[in-house]
């Protein structure tokens, strides 16, 4: 069963507008959530994270929101730029799993000039 789900395989937005990427999870024991960004032919790179004890974390143009009651998190990118075009993976960490992360399926973001 998929414990971390990204239900939108792709998203297209105009440059300068907001991009919102969504992620749902099923395991209430997850204690940390992360977003990774991946360009073609490169490995994923860490973007932003949030602890389960918080509901928001902001880093420049990127903000992650966590709604624990809904088991939902989202990544907001404002304003979106063409260089943000990539695949975004949501990931979650179980409390006692030695750093092991469980990833969602990914959402391909395309930011059009």
């Amino acid at each position, binding site marked *: 069963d998929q414990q971390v789900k990204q239900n939108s395989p792709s998203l297209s937005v105009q440059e300068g507008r907001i991009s919102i990427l969504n992620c749902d999870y099923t395991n209430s024991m997850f204690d940390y959530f992360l977003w990774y960004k991946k360009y073609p032919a490169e490995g994923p790179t860490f973007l932003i994270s949030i*602890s389960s004890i918080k509901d928001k974390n902001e880093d420049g143009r990127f903000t992650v929101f966590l709604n624990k009651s809904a088991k939902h998190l989202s990544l907001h990118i404002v304003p979106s730029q063409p260089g943000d075009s990539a695949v975004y993976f949501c990931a979650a*960490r179980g409390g006692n799993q030695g750093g092991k992360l469980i990833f969602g399926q990914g959402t391909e973001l395309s930011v059009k000039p």
Partner: protein
Amino acid sequence: DVKVTQSSRYLVKRTGEKVFLECVQDMDHENMFWYRQDPGLGLRLIYFSYDVKMKEKGDIPEGYSVSREKKERFSLILESASTNQTSMYLCATKGYQAGELFFGEGSRLTVL
């Protein structure tokens, strides 16, 4: 900067061949991971290691084995490659911030 180096970017192998994918990290990290990435399935954990000679199965270990003889090196082995193992393979190490993984550039394996 953390550097995670995967030995081969692109490989083409035949069904039944033995395949070695090597990963080397330069940061003395203890935890290392092998994931595979497939369209629509995201990244799935194959095996991980939290110390030399220690290994744990991930979510999809069937058809794979691993070796960690030195702290900096973590190898993924396909004893007898099959076409359903055609994929992008990603090695990662765990840094010191909670949950943060550092990935190599990936090895794209095609099994014919």
